[in-house]
């Protein structure tokens, strides 16, 4: 091939930069990069605010001192034992849900393809409610049972939708059916419960992050790493799938393997996120749409994960400190933010006459 003058060379399109070194080349879209950096900065700002605000306030210099290991015992406790694990869990859960939502939207080629619509969230709820109502289980057992519920739902979707699905509708229709069935089961479990279990169940169903510890943050981090690596491995194939199954196969993507891996990793990510935090409404649905608007392209799964992390971290901070000093469950705030965003999306789409 013709010589590339320097190891670093920029392509002529003006929108993307290409880094080349020997036989290797990496493509970077500038706007995507800017959006990712913007999300990280916003996340840092939210983190700084949520770790220093509240009944125990820290000035910026004290926060820095505590983070760098020279805080007082009280400061250490508030930051390292109470606030940081909760923040880390919020970031991990949000990233899991945002990434899962983006994978499902790509897989179904449907802007509404999210674990909330496809029944995975309801499956996790069945797991959690069964553990609470039928077994009176511990918090850890509820988390495990919720994860199993989501994974089981993902498995059923996979079994019922194997084979070709040129329109992408089959997963959506099967998911909607499963969601309806599982919602019925949840209603049944709630009517069977006594008042204490019912209160606990409803609280779980709202989704909350209070009292999360490092152990839960580590669990979410592990799930995010596993799902993230699997998604990265099939990233190219998933991108080809946006052109439709036939075109993707024509380009040399292993459509069957890509779809199966995508479904499994999105299910694991949903299971991890929902099991630890409960079904935080709308995060998985809204995060990929917001990321697509920021980057001007629906291709960046990384940005969807970052936006998800930002939404949950900000919503959790708002839930803690935002409303007249009373703590709210995190899910209430994500639900309001997600619902308002969805309405705005629908209204602007109607004006433009297009789907995102």
């Amino acid at each position, binding site marked *: *091939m013709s010589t590339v003058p320097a190891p670093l060379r920029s*392509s002529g399109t003006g929108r993307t930069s290409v880094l080349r070194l020997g036989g290797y080349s990496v493509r970077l879209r500038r706007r995507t990069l800017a959006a990712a950096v913007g999300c990280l900065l916003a996340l840092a700002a939210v983190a700084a605010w949520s770790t220093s605000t509240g009944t125990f306030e820290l000035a910026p210099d004290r926060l820095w001192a505590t983070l760098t290991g020279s805080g007082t015992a009280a400061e250490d406790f508030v930051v390292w034992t109470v606030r940081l694990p909760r923040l880390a869990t919020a970031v991990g859960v949000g990233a899991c849900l945002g990434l899962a939502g983006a994978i499902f939207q790509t897989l179904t080629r449907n802007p509404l393809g999210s674990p909330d619509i496809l029944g995975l969230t309801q499956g996790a709820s069945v797991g959690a409610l069964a553990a609470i109502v039928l077994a009176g289980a511990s918090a850890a057992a509820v988390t495990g049972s919720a994860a199993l519920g989501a994974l089981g739902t993902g498995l059923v979707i996979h079994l019922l939708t194997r084979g070709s699905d040129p329109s992408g509708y089959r997963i959506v229709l099967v998911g909607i059916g499963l969601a309806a069935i599982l919602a019925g089961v949840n209603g049944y479990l709630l009517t069977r419960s006594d008042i204490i279990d019912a209160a606990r169940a409803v609280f779980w169903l709202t989704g909350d992050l209070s009292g999360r510890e490092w152990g839960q943050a580590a669990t979410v981090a592990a799930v995010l790493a596993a799902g993230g690596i699997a998604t990265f491995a099939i*990233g190219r194939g998933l991108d080809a799938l946006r052109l439709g199954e*036939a075109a993707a196969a024509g*380009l*040399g993507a292993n459509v069957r393997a890509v779809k199966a891996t995508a479904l499994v990793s999105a299910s694991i990510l949903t299971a991890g996120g929902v099991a630890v935090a409960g079904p935080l409404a709308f995060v998985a649905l809204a995060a990929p749409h917001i990321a697509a608007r920021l980057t001007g392209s629906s291709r960046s799964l990384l940005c969807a994960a970052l936006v998800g992390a930002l939404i949950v971290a900000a919503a959790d901070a708002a839930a803690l400190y935002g409303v007249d000093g009373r703590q709210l469950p995190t899910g209430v705030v994500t639900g309001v933010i997600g619902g308002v965003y969805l309405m705005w999306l629908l209204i602007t789409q109607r004006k433009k006459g297009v789907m995102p």
Partner: protein
Amino acid sequence: MTVPTSPLSTANATIGYGRVAVSEGLTVDIPEGEFTVIIGPNACGKSTLLKALARTLRPSAGRVLLDGRDIHAQSTRSVAKRLGLLPQGPTAPDGITVADLVARGRYPHQGLLRQWSAEDEAVVAEAMEATAVTDLAARGVDELSGGQRQRVWIAMALAQQTPLLLLDEPTTYLDITHQIEVLDLCAELHRKGRTLVAVLHDLNQAARYATHLIAMRDGAVVAEGPPADIVTADIVDEVFDLPCVIIDDPETATPLVIPRSVRPAPVAAV
């Protein structure tokens, strides 16, 4: 082992959907360097054959051979370097630009750490040049007319740099001007040395552009050969149940099918 006479063929293949076989024991050879067009009435199995040739459908019996080897024993990536496919009615992701869509054609030549080589860039530019979409490079695919859009998809398949190109009804939903535009482009690609296989609905367009015709009915090949041999009144009647006369196309001297105005009525007139 015998030298393959045809780059792409089916050998005694049974092809269908689920348990329903559309074609049984089908043996078809795609001749190298020809512009092959598959014709036949609706539901005759022509698109099904194309899907089998493109590796989209796996035959339940028999084999599809690419370069003499079973196509399903080869990796998707190596098949994609030999054979490009333009599926029927493809849909582009919303907001994608022409240049981005054409660039997707480089997929089988790329990897995680080989995302955009200088060769990719040159090949994509060449593909856009060949299909006359270079001026549209920065436009969104969804803003284009049907004919322009189809040319962009063909550019994507060209960027794949395959000696074989399969097109499933490339002219469907296009008005007559754009149909001819797309077919002229196909003829041009054929002249430059590619082996083309297309499914077309319009018999006269098939007769005009193809260098090799495969006529199908009820899942079986009725006749194949050069259009002048295949497009005869007898064969057209046999394949399509259409009484007709054949005249020479005044422009190209290829066969032109003129349906008869008086057809034998299925029920006696009152």
